[in-house]
């Protein structure tokens, strides 16, 4: 290593140090602390604090409320992300094909996306109102018990979430569509490709990477979803809309069981990390292939 290289390396270390320190202080340290807490029985206000090993995790393994929350989280994530992608792509294509009013359509989409989750949830609380809500008034005699029926509440929450976050997917896709050169489509036309063939052979493959990215972001968000169900249902009825984060909140902040609540949080963290890792691998192989 020459002297100049060594100097460059030193400078690089100095430059990267603030980031490492900040990440260490804000992410790694609290992360390790939560991991440590999850191995304890700790309820500070009752002066309970003792090492418990894997007791909290052992209880979680046989805790029906935990498994129900895990299942709800999975269904919510799969359902909302799948719907968001399908609708998002459809909306992006529709706006792209539209000759006029694109700006209006885009601003309306952004409006929903920019709305705070709690406000969106409150809005849907009114839409789902059993007797005065717009949806049930439109349904008339076939009114549905949206937030009080254990079979309907989770789909209702998913729908509210899709309304708010679909624009994110739509706008990303729309931006990608704008970047596809027109001559690609012209060439396809010359080759005699129909509209379906153009969509499946050109547009969707070109959207692939950006969609993967959108799905990554949305999945990580959906796995940690909290506000929408917390406001709409509080986790009910019968705990059918209680996700892992809501369960963790109840344990941590409502009943102040720091050890047990941390164990739930660690599981959420592990889940998010595993999914992020899987997606990133997928994204990398995708890049190499492309």
């Amino acid at each position, binding site marked *: 290593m020459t002297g100049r290289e060594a100097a460059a390396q030193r400078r690089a270390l100095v430059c990267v140090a603030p980031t490492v320190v900040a990440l260490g202080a804000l992410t790694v340290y609290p992360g390790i602390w939560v991991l440590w807490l999850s191995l304890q*029985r700790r*309820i*500070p*206000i*009752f002066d*309970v604090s003792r090492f418990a090993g894997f007791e909290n995790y052992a*209880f979680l393994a046989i805790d*029906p*409320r935990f498994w129900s929350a895990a299942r709800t989280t999975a269904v919510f994530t799969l359902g909302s992300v799948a719907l968001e992608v399908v609708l998002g792509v459809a909306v992006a294509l529709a706006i792209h094909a539209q000759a006029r009013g694109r700006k209006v359509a885009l601003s309306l989409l952004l409006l929903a996306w920019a709305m705070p989750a709690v406000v969106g949830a409150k809005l849907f609380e009114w839409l789902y*109102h*059993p*007797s*005065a809500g717009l949806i049930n008034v439109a349904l008339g005699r076939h009114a549905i*018990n*949206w*937030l*009080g*029926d*254990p079979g309907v*509440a989770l789909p209702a929450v998913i729908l509210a979430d899709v309304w708010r976050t679909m624009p994110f997917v739509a706008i990303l896709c729309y931006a990608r569509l704008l970047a596809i050169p027109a001559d690609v489509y012209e060439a396809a036309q010359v080759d005699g490709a129909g509209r379906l063939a153009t969509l499946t052979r050109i547009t969707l493959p070109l959207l692939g990477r950006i969609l993967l990215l959108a799905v990554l972001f949305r999945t990580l968000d959906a796995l940690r979803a909290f506000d929408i169900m917390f406001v709409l*249902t*509080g*986790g*009910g*009825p*019968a*705990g*059918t809309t*209680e996700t892992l984060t809501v369960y963790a909140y*109840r344990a941590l*902040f*409502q*009943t*102040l*069981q720091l050890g047990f609540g941390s164990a739930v949080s660690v599981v959420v963290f592990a889940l998010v990390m595993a999914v992020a890792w899987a997606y990133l691998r997928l994204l990398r192989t995708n890049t190499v292939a492309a």
Partner: protein
Amino acid sequence: MIARRSAWALGLVAWLLALGGCGAGHERGPVTLVFKYARILGNADPLPELLRAFEAAHPRVRVKGEALPWASDDQHQFYVINLEGRSPGFDVMMLDCIWVPEFARAGWLLDLTSQLGPDELAPYFPSAVASATYDGRVWALPWNFNVGLLYYRTDLLAKYGLRPPETYEEMVEQIRRIRAGERDPALDGYVWQGKQYEGLVVNVLEAFWANDTTLMAENESVFPEPARAADALKFLRGLITTGVSPAWTTAADEELSRRAFGDGHAIFLRNWPYAMDLFEAPGSAVRGKVAFAPLPGRVRGAPGVGSTGGAHLGVSARSRYPELALALARHLTSERAQRAIALGAALSPTRQALYRDRDLVRERPAMPRLQALALAGRPRPVTPYYLLLSATVQPEFSAALVGVKSPERAIADAGARLAYFLQAVR
């Protein structure tokens, strides 16, 4: 270089000054008391004026009223984080009555027992005092009061020659008759709170009491009579399956049910006293057509008991001016202050004498009747573990109400979970 050095010196001086300011601030000059409370809704918020009156009586004291978040859960979280973090940020705290034993056990509240006069608590409702008492000591002064009531439509009952029902059986029969006569598909029978939240626990507790059992016994054992508790849940579920209560009861909180009744779409409603003012407000669809009675019982001669609630004022154990803080709590819970609050807002007083107060009764004619029902009310279990208790049973009760679990199973599951969590804290 010189400029930089003088900037350093300037910064150091400013810092030292600030430090000195912190240390000396409370020794001299005016004292500032911080009062944490949730905004009071109503035609006029009487609190700013009450706080100014306290300042006028204590010339060297300033009172800063600071608003708490709106939702009860958020308020609790705010207190826990600040008190656990030993923040001395406030002196007098508005507390939901269900938190008092928890905060007392955590050492966050000043024990008021020795400071109170011998009969100082006598004018209050016994149930309010009970929920401010833990471990034989008093930790807060009762500020406003709530009790579960059965609202009914006087016009509909009169039309069919009926008197307010004493038992649930009677109520069900009255609903059947009235709905058969009215032929209005939009008219529901009995609306109450069945959403998975604290209100559900209150409604189920009232059903437990009507069935002669409870959630936590005196000796702190949970579900002392599981069969009776399951039977009460089965009864509540039955109200929904038989159509006495609408299907959406399982998503109903206070406001949802209050609006349905207030729009004239229900015959009976279980709710708190605040609803009466709204039913009697100008423009209300049920104005002059509403009265309240005790909740029905399961057998004749034993009327149901309403659950009590409300807010207390406690003094922070970290307050630097405990005597002044207690004086402020006393001032705000005084008869004069509670009268002003009852007149300006839809909150009911904790002092019994005010229920026969001329000014108040003229403004709210139902007050004397309310007193009798409030007197009979019963607090939710007074235990430091109340929130753990409530958060654990909520999904189980909800599961029984919506029918995904049998009542017996729900009670057994809730009991098992509670046993596990409680053995850790006791």
